[in-house]
């Protein structure tokens, strides 16, 4: 048995090395499909719809990158990953990028050898409790049983928060969000904690969403964003600037509706550079000149993707808040296209 696992570890290490050696961009082009790691299902962020087609806020990023590289937003193979399997899947080359509510932290960036290519959602960890418990603040949770997804940053934040407030709790570690919701609904735990956005998303699927409240305390900073393997900077640039293109498009007012009109040429040189009618930004990335136009054609700009999947008119009902454009007082800000 010892040998088998040893050989298995070697295989993984070998795969990682071979994946790093060849450029991811060339591999994706040769394959004709991009492998994108997503969650096993968080409504609004990444979930297959009734027809089995993956939809959501994170999924849109995957599709945009695929469109920028391959010209087709459907040329994506979605690989569902759990909190435990996501990093191994990315490190081993099983997936080309990970867009899975993953928090950008120092140790993941530096120690685990990944490259975060930006932030597509500024989140924070929150608590959800049934309304009839009569709890209005997280500081009243002394002695509560807390359901938590294991292998996430939330696990550490939870320990820190309860320790610094000097209150006790009983953790119930769970593998996936779906199982956590099942236990929470059965009353096996009093509190469910994860990123506030995911809480809102899960609650939207409950039988009676109004019977549950999300407590006002946000106990951590959780900048969520797509990530790639460390070391392949060309591929990292493509993912980073595709996300930036979506953000910039919202800032410049390029939407899926007026995209063709704008792509014909406009008075704004930055729009022209973005959409490839001026300069050669696409060539610098090793992509076609219309890479950003292709990416935006899939689902529109950042704001449109937000409103369609998790915005206030969806069952999930998240406000833009921190995720508004910097011009509207939010943190969403893209470096300039020039």
């Amino acid at each position, binding site marked *: 048995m010892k040998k088998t696992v040893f050989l298995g*570890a070697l295989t993984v*290490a070998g795969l990682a090395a071979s994946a790093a050696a060849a450029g991811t961009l060339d591999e994706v082009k040769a394959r004709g499909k991009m492998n994108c790691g997503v969650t096993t299902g968080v409504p609004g962020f990444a979930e297959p719809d009734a027809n089995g087609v993956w939809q959501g806020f994170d999924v849109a990023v995957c599709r945009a990158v695929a469109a920028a590289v391959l010209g087709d937003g459907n040329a994506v193979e979605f690989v569902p990953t759990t909190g*435990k399997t996501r990093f191994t899947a990315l490190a081993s080359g099983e997936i080309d990028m990970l867009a899975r509510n993953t928090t950008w932290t120092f140790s993941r960036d530096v120690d685990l050898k990944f490259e975060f290519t930006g932030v597509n959602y500024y989140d924070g960890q929150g608590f959800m409790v049934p309304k009839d418990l009569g709890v209005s603040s997280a500081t009243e949770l002394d002695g509560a049983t807390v359901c938590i997804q294991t292998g996430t940053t939330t696990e550490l934040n939870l*320990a820190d928060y309860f320790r610094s407030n000097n209150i006790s709790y009983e953790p*119930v*570690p769970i593998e996936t969000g779906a199982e956590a919701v099942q236990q929470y609904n059965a009353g096996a735990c009093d509190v469910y904690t994860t990123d506030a956005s995911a809480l809102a998303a899960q609650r939207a699927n409950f039988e009676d969403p109004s019977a549950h409240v999300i407590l006002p305390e946000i106990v951590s900073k959780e900048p969520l964003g797509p990530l790639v393997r460390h070391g392949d900077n060309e591929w990292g640039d493509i993912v980073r600037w595709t996300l930036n293109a979506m953000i910039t498009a919202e800032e410049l007012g390029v939407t899926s509706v007026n995209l063709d009109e704008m792509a014909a040429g406009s008075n704004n040189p930055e729009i022209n550079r973005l959409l490839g009618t001026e300069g050669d930004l696409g060539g610098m990335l090793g992509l076609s000149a219309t890479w950003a136009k292709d990416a935006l054609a899939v689902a529109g700009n950042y704001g449109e993707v937000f409103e369609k999947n998790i915005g206030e008119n969806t069952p999930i009902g998240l406000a833009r808040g921190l995720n508004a454009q910097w011009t509207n007082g939010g943190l969403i800000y893209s470096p300039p296209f020039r």
Partner: protein
Amino acid sequence: MTTQADPQVAVKPAGSFKLSMLLNDTRYRSLTFQFIALVAIIATMAFVGGNLVRNLAEAGLNISYAFLGEPAGYDINQRPIEYDSQSSHGRAAVVGLLNTLIVAFLACVTATIFGVIAGVLRLSNNWIVSKLMSFYVEIFRNVPVLIWILIIFSIMINAMPAPRDFRGDNATSSMLFDAFAFTNRGVYSPKPILGDGSMIVIGVFIASIVGIFLFRKFARTQLYEHGKLIPTFWPSVGLFFVPVILAQLVLGSPITLEYPALKGFNFQGGMQIRGSLIALWFALAIYTGAFIAENVRAGILAISKGQTEAAGALGLRPNRIMNLVVLPQALRVIIPPLISQYLNITKNSSLAIAVGYMDVTGTLGGITLLQTGRAIETVLLLMLFYLTVSLLISAVMNVFNNRMKLQER
């Protein structure tokens, strides 16, 4: 004639060694092949190992166990030893290890009990009983243990009341004898609190158990040597209870019970056996019990029918035939496969994370691995741990097996 059967042996005098003899001479050939195989294995291992080291170095990773001393940062619900989120990863691993041993021990004991009962009853002459037992064995043996763990756990969390159902004037659930609470988070029971002088009570208890053994031994010698049958059951029961209760009363109740009570979100005080432990324990026990039942049945069937008939002819009742004649002999057949069932239980306990039980795979191989990213190190440690535990179980059981073996004189 014998010299001609192997001409090389006969003809070649010692000392004149040719290289071709390594392949042609039967004396050397097997050694040659073994040597070649050995070199090939070493070369493969060296190549693979070198590859690993080089790839790790390229990826900027190094093998280091320094993380074991760093603070873990996460909490564990079931802590046999003191632990908090500021304890080290190493201590978290030890907590997980103890949790693994706890569930493995409980499941081994329970599975043996289930197995022996089901195995004996499956051979019963009563049609219903034997069919029921075959039903149990076939159902549990042929469905993966992970599925059983999940089924039992989800039945538990959905069928049992939540602690909040115990609250209020029109509570839908109530505690059994005001001492036991069965909830979907586990079972809460009273916990003995040891006060001053409780050591004396415990000492008395141990002494009375020793006394029971001595008494039974005395009764046996009386039976074998003098033919006097002394009743042992009721005196044993008396010896078990009376001295302890007397000591407890005389010393003014040094051992008290702490009852669980609903406080805040959960029951507080008392002893909590968590739902995850119960589900894992029960699933492992009932699943492996089905295998042990088959071992037991095989062992019993291996004893020739003549033994049973001879014992019957001596006037022994069926109960005593089973206990005194058949089972002791059957044990010799049962124990060796039983060892591997115990090993299976220990290894299958690594499925604990499915119900959120924090065993060593959950702490060291789960959270620690993810938070530190030290996959190779933690997996090697895990392998070492399971290997050690399995070898220890085998060693202990082999000693037991040797003692039960037929003593040849």
